[in-house]
Every structure is written in structure tokens, then in C-alpha cells.
């Protein structure tokens, strides 16, 4: 057997350095736990530092290139999506510093899993190799299943098992899809697949279509695209509120990056193809059905779960539309969605009691927030800001994402899509308004207001204040955001 000889330079270790930092952090936390039982504050601090270092490296290196036997691909969308993932993680980690004692945060494994998961997602977005994407996806997902289960309520176990089963199916479909493309083109690199398919003029339609369908199913689970969305509300309900918020952002942006790369290879935004039609229908169905089911929810968390399904459908249109503006729109929207949605879930978290449920069915039903304005006006106003932002009321964060996405649809002559997106905003306002009506206009239920601050600590309030500030003053940040995102997207050729 011939020895494999390679130059260490050729590995381009810079590409893998950010992930290595996070992995090192995870291992360090595990080792520290072996030495001595530590305080959760230490884990939080260490995780934050390692994620911050990771974020710094992602931004500082920021050079397009391949590395590690060419399986890693660092380009514009890889960098932007990693920034979104890491910023969301930075906001998430301090939410562990709760007022009440929650069991999962006592375990070092919780934080180690979390860091492993981040590295998994980073591998997933920074590669166009289907096998590495698969490995990244599975690493991240397995860690996530465990994180959900660690919340250690009956519903959490149910949620974890449900998510795991669904995820296992999705993984199978992903493998099938990859198989089709490998069989057709002899490559597992999306770039090569694209070249071969283009050279052949997209012949063997049936196999391409099967591959595409398998991939839509696999990614559909991760992105909670209708009809693969049914796990979402149950899993979000079972997971702790911050983790649910985190799940509505990070796994999805990773999934979207894979979808962008994959469907770009399949030329899915060419109108008239079957894949285009499939994606068009999925996007419209996801935003509409998510919205309609959200209208009738009694629990705020389930409402937010359905609303996040609808938001997924809204940005899925970016892949249908294609082109630089739409793709940048996706990242801009998701970047703004991050602060809004994580803020909204953090508001639920701050009112969570570790053992007591509000009623038999829900931790956070709408009735819990009745008359909140009287007891804690500031908290009610902050929650209202998050709701109005989710609904797309100007000048709050998601409004800018919304007009940018609808603008992208109009500019590429997808008028019907633009109208459907607009109408969906009209439906969505109703359920966001419902919470505002409860908080501001209904009479208070019998409580003294302490219920809204069960978990209150300074770090939690800081995170909330920060998220609310970003949402309110987003108007001043949109211009640099658009400029930087658009230039990196254009540079990476989408």
C-alpha cells in the first residue's frame, strides 16, 4: 500500500480552526467535570468564551477557500451562517443562569453537548460535501436530542423521542438522496454534481427528481416544512423555552444553507421545472398552514412554534426565487428573526417555574399573561415589541426582513408569491395581536405579578434588554447588514 503523502499547508487548517476551538472547549468542560464537580457558572463562562473565540476566528479568517482534503468549503454563505449560529449561541448560553434551579444546567454534559452541536452545525454549513454535511447534521442532531431530553420533564422525554424518531427518518432520506446524486454523477460534492448535471443537460429527470424529493423530505424535517412539520409544536413544548427558541433559529439556518447549496446545484429556481413547483408549493403551504394553525392555539409556546413554521415557509421562498437579492434576503431575515424569536422565547423562560405548571395542560397559556401591563409594564412592553416585530410592524426588526423578501419576490417577477407572502402577514397579525390583547387589554387574573419573574436574574434581563434594543433600533443596522451580506453572497456566487 502506498503511503499517503500530503503537505500540512494543503490542509488549510484555517478553515477548520473555528470548529476545533469549540470542540476543544467541549472536551475541556468534560475534563473539568471529571476533576471536580463544578458550578454551572464556570460552564457558562467557559462556553461563552469558547463560542466568542470561535466567532472571532470565523470573522477574522473570513477568506474564501477549501481545506481539509477539499471537504470543507468556506465561502460567503458559510461565514454568514456561522455568524448567525454563533451569535444565537452566545445569546442562548447565559439563559442558563436562571433564578430557579433547573437540573440540566448542573450537568457539564449539557454544555459539552451544546458545544459539540455548534461544531456539528458549523461543519454542516461550511462544506459542500454531502458526507460531511451528513456527519455534521447527525452530530448536531444527536447532541440536540440529548439536550432536549435533559430538561427532564415527561414532555421533554416525549419530545426528544419524537424528534429523534423523526430525525432518524430524515437521516435515512438524506442518505437516499445523496445516493441518487452519487449514482447519477459519481460525485458527492455539490459543485461537481452541478457541473456534471449541467454538462448532461439535466437528463435522467426521474432520478434527479427522486433525489430532489428525498432531499426535500430530509431537509423538510429539519426546516419544519409542511407536511413534515408536525413534530415542531410538540418538541418545542417539551424543550425548555430558550432551547425551543434556539431550535427555531440555528438548526434551520444550517438546513437552509444546505438547501441553498443543493437546490442551486439542481437549478431549482428555474421556473417550470418540477423541483421548482415542489418548492413553490412547499413554501406557500408552509407559511399558510403554519399561520392558520397558529390562530387557534391556546399556549403561547405552541403558537410561537407554529409561527416559526410559518416564518420558515416565508424564507423558503428565497430558494424558490433564487438570485443574490433573495438569498441575501434569507440571511437578513434570519439574522433579524434571531433576536426577535430568541427574545420572545426568553420572555417565556423568565416566567417559568421549575415545578409548577400554570394549568393542567400548559406552562404558558395565553391566560397567564392576562393584564400583565398592570403588574410589570416594562416586561409587557418588551414582549409586545417582540410580538409586533414577529408580525412585521414597522420600524421593528422583522419588518425590514419582510420588505426585503417581498421586494426580492417582486423584483424577480414572482408577483403571486409576493401577494401570498403579503396576505400571510395579514393572517399572522391576528395571533400575535392575541397575546398583546391578553397582556394589555384583558383584566388581570388573580396573581400578584411575581409569576412573570419566576426565573429573573440579571443576566437574563440583560439578554432580554439587548434583544429588545436590537429589535427596536434595527433601522440603523439594516443598511450595514444588507451591504455586508449582499457582498459576501454575491462573492460566493449565489
Amino acid at each position, binding site marked *: 500500500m502506498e503511503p499517503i503523502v500530503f503537505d500540512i499547508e494543503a490542509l488549510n487548517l484555517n478553515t477548520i480552526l473555528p470548529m476545533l476551538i469549540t470542540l476543544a472547549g467541549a472536551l475541556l468542560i468534560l475534563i473539568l467535570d471529571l476533576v471536580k464537580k463544578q458550578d454551572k457558572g464556570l460552564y457558562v463562562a467557559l462556553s461563552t468564551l469558547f463560542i466568542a473565540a470561535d466567532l472571532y476566528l470565523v470573522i477574522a479568517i473570513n477568506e474564501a477557500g477549501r481545506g481539509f482534503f477539499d471537504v470543507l468549503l468556506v465561502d460567503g454563505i458559510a461565514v454568514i451562517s456561522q455568524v448567525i449560529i454563533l451569535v444565537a449561541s452566545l445569546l442562548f448560553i447565559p439563559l442558563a443562569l436562571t433564578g430557579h434551579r433547573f437540573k440540566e444546567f448542573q450537568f457539564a454534559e449539557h454544555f459539552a453537548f451544546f458545544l459539540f452541536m455548534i461544531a456539528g452545525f458549523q461543519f454542516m454549513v461550511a462544506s459542500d460535501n454531502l458526507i460531511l454535511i451528513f456527519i455534521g447534521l447527525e452530530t448536531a442532531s444527536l447532541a440536540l436530542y440529548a439536550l432536549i431530553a435533559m430538561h427532564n420533564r415527561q414532555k421533554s422525554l416525549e419530545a426528544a423521542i419524537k424528534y429523534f424518531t423523526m430525525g432518524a427518518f430524515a437521516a435515512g432520506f438524506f442518505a437516499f438522496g445523496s445516493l441518487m446524486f452519487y449514482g447519477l454523477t459519481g460525485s458527492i460534492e455539490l459543485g461537481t454534481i452541478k457541473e456534471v448535471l449541467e454538462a448532461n443537460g439535466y437528463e435522467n429527470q426521474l432520478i434527479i427528481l427522486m433525489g430532489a424529493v428525498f432531499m426535500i423530505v430530509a431537509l423538510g424535517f429539519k426546516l419544519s416544512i409542511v407536511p413534515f412539520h408536525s413534530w415542531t409544536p410538540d418538541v418545542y413544548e417539551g424543550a425548555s423555552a430558550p432551547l425551543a427558541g434556539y431550535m427555531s433559529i440555528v438548526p434551520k439556518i444550517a438546513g437552509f444553507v444546505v438547501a441553498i447549496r443543493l437546490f442551486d446545484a439542481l437549478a431549482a429556481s428555474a421556473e417550470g421545472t418540477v423541483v421548482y413547483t415542489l418548492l413553490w408549493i412547499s413554501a406557500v403551504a408552509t407559511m399558510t398552514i403554519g399561520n392558520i394553525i397558529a390562530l387557534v392555539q391556546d399556549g403561547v409556546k405552541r403558537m410561537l412554534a407554529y409561527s416559526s413554521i410559518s416564518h420558515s415557509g416565508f424564507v423558503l421562498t428565497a430558494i424558490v426565487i433564487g438570485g443574490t437579492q433573495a438569498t441575501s434576503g434569507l440571511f437578513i431575515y434570519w439574522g433579524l428573526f434571531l433576536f426577535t424569536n430568541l427574545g420572545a422565547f426568553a420572555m417565556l423562560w423568565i416566567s417559568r417555574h421549575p415545578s409548577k405548571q400554570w394549568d393542567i395542560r400548559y406552562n404558558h397559556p395565553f391566560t397567564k399573561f392576562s393584564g400583565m*401591563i398592570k403588574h410589570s*409594564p416594562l416586561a409587557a412592553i418588551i414582549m409586545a415589541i417582540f410580538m*409586533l416585530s414577529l408580525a412585521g*410592524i*414597522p*420600524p421593528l426588526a422583522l*419588518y*425590514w426582513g419582510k*420588505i*426585503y423578501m*417581498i*421586494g426580492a419576490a*417582486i*423584483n424577480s417577477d414572482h408577483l403571486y408569491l*409576493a*401577494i401570498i407572502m*403579503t*396576505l400571510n*402577514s*395579514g393572517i399572522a*397579525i*391576528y395571533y400575535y*395581536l392575541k397575546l*398583546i*390583547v391578553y397582556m*394589555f*387589554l*384583558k383584566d388581570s387574573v388573580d396573581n400578584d405579578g411575581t409569576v412573570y419573574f419566576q426565573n429573573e436574574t440579571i443576566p437574563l434581563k440583560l439578554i432580554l434588554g439587548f434583544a429588545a434594543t436590537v429589535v427596536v433600533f434595527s*433601522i*440603523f443596522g*439594516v*443598511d450595514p447588514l*444588507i*451591504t455586508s451580506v*449582499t457582498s459576501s453572497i454575491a462573492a460566493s456566487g449565489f
Partner: protein
Amino acid sequence: MEHILSFLIFFPAVAAAFGFMISSKSIRSYAITITAIEFLVSLLLWSNFDMSNMRMQFVEQLPLIESFGISYYLGLDGFSLFLVIMTTFMTMMSLIGLTDTKNIKNMIASVLVLEMTMVGVFVSLDAIIFYVFWELSLVPMLYIIGAWGGPRKLYAAVKFFLYTFTGSLFLLLGMLYTAYLFHQATGQWSFSITDWHLLQMPFSTQLWIFAAMGIGFAVKVPMFPFHTWLPYAHGQAPTIGSVILAAILLKMGSYGFLRFSLPIFPDASVYFMIPIAIIALIMIVYTAMVAFAQKDIKQVIAYSSVSHMGVIILGTFALNAEGIGGSLYLAIAHGIVSGALFMLVGVIYDRRHTKMISEFGGLAKVMPMYATIFGIMMMSSVGLPLTISFVGEFLSLLGFYQVSPVMTAIAGTSIILGAIYMLNIYREAFFGVPNEKNSVLKDLNGRELTALVPLVAIVIWLGVYPKPVLGPIDTASKGLVNFMYHKAVAPETKATLVEVNTIQIKGAQ
């Protein structure tokens, strides 16, 4: 005078934040002071306004989102000048007349934030900034109706919000499409309305965008058949909510037509002239009849608002200087008169806690001052000569006469129908059989007189001598008509515009 418009927009909102430091005992004085300063500053606009200049004045421009062509762009012309003054004035008067005491700090903060959004709508010259204020105005109003309203307040507040929000989404769609067309034509992104004015669009495109934006404005006006939210909102809103809603918020819709639809889509405006006029006629006649059937005084005035907004829309779509100028004048007149009428209903509601006509009778004897002021306002609402509404209504109808005498005759019934339902209230409530319960009612007190007498003075002053207000409006209307003529792409449009205008259009054959 550099940043006077920015000051006008943000002063009330900043003041609202400081308001939370003041105890509820003094908060009303604080709010009145703030709105009085705001009003005086808006009067400065009037005195510094160059009457002969048709261009935008007091312009401020600051790039905000350059890569998408959004800038913070403010300016004022003859159309917006008096709407701004009316806004600051009516907000001040409604706060003077405010009698609610429950959670008064929140109420006053909402009103001040609302004032910010209303002034913002009237002075924004960037479509996105316009839309920001337009949508933001829904939030404080939702709170005002929902928190201080009547028994069905939640239903009314949510209906108001959903209806207007959904309507304005179409407006947003139209704006984004216009920006896209502008980008195609020039290669640059811009949401500036004055840039859009220069954009030439093919006829068929104009029709679609006009329709999309028109829905947004129509819901706000509200035009038939989108008017059903208004009676609920008025019926349930507290007095101050009704006053601001009727006096100012509705005018945003008719102002939208003037600012966007007419100058940007002249061909579509001419094309839709008759269909919109028919809708306006339905508004005028149908809602007047509905008003007559109401048993609640406030509902009568609410429906009469829709009816009068019909005349305003009719005048706007006469597309000549008299009609456009008259409709804007009527908008201001209606703001003052309907605001006063809602305040008057509030006065009696505070005393009796009912608004049913059947509960009253013989009020003229018990409350002579109240009856006098109500009588003057009612007569103005009906369109009695020498009152403010008469000027606007007459000019609007005169304008439309050039378009169609028959339709104008039908619209003229608004005066007769208005007289019927208004005099009916007056007969039942102020004369009629005296009701025992009313015999002890007190007449207007000092605060109420302070809130109402200036309104009466303005109604009569501007009814007798409308020139100071009508002058700038007229200049702006003539400018608009000329502009539409030169911008129109279809020869039929130009022909129609010449036909309906009595003034000489520059450059027309």
C-alpha cells in the same frame, strides 16, 4: 427652521417618555403643555411657509438604508401644512377635554405617541418612512380603544387593527412594486415620493398599483365596502379616541390619495374617476340612511363621518383645482366639526353614562350653552353657509359638477340627508319630551368650554373668511393638476383633465 419637522415628529414621543416621571395628578397639565408647544411650533410652519412656492418646503433628507434606497426624507407642501396644524390643534383640544382618569398616564403616553405617528404620516416624503408611521399609528389606537373603550372594546379594537393592517399590506405591496419599477427605469433604488413623481409608467401597470395602494387608503378612509370597522371603533372608543380617529386618522386615507395616487398614477386616477365617484356616492347616500336608523348618538356621528368622507373622496376625484382644494378644506373642516361633535357626545356621556337618543329629551332647557354649541356644530356638519364645512363641501361639489352634474346632484343630497338625521337627533334629544333624569344635569363647565369654544370660533372664522387656509391649498391643487396633465401618458387622460378643469393648464392645447 432647519429641523422643525423632525422636532414636530419626535417632540411628543420624547415627552411621552418623560411623562412617566410625573404623578398622575399633574400629568394632564403636562400633556396639555406639551401639545400646546407642539401646536405653537406648527403655527411657526404656517408663518414661515412660502405661499407662492409649489415645491416641498422645510425639507430634511438623511440616508437611512442606502442600499435599498430608503432615506429619512421630510417635507411640507400646501396639502400637508394644514393637516399638520389640524393634527396638533385637535390633539391639544382633545387632551383639554379629556375626562378619563383610569390609568391616565398610559392614556396620555398613547395619545402623545399617536401624535408623533400622525404628524409623521403627513410630513414623510419617503414611502417607507410614511408606511412606518402609518402602521405605527395603529398600535396606540389599538390600546386606546381596547383599554378605555365600551363593553365590546376588545372586538372593536381587534377589528380595527386587523382591518387596517391587512388593508395597508396592499399599500406596502404597491410601494415595493413602484420601487422596483423605479429601479428598472433608473438602475437606482429609491423610495422617495418626489422621485416617484418623475417615474413614467405604462397605463396597465398604473392600474394595478393604483388598485393595490387604493385598497390601503380605502380601508383607512374608510370607503364602502370597507367601512364596517369604523362604527364599531367609534361606538366602543373612549371620547378622546373617537375625536382623534374621526378628526385625524381618517384623513390619512384621503391624504394618501393626494400624495400617492393622483401624482404618481395620473392615468389610472382618470380611469378610475367614475368608479370611485360611484363608490363615493354610495358612501354618501347609503351611510347617511344608516345614520338615520341609529339609536345611539355616537353611531349617528360615526356614520355621518363615513358619509362626509364620501364627499371628500368625490371632491378629490373631480381631479380639478376646485375639487381637490375643496376636498382638502373639507377634510380639515370635518376634522374640527366631527371632533367637536364627538367631544360633545362625550360631555353628555360623562353625565348620564348613556348615548341613547331615547334617554334624552329637553336638554336645551337644562343645558342651554351645551345646546347652543351642539347646534352650531351640527349646523356646520350639515353644511350651513358661513360655517367651515360649507366652504369645503361646496367646492368639492362644484369641482365634481364639471365632471358630472347628475352625480353631483345625487351627492348634493348629502346635505339634505345630513340635515334629516342631525336635526332628528336635535329634536329628540334637545327638545322633545323632557326626561326626569335629565333635569338635574349641569351645563358645560369651565374645562369643557375651554375645549369647545375655540372650535366654535374656528368653525365660524374659517366659514366666513376661508382665504388664509384656502390660499396655500389652492396653490398646491393647481400645481398638482398641472403636474398630472404633464405626466399623463395617454392622450385621453390629458383630454379629460383639460375638460374637467376651468383653470388654464399650462402648456395645454
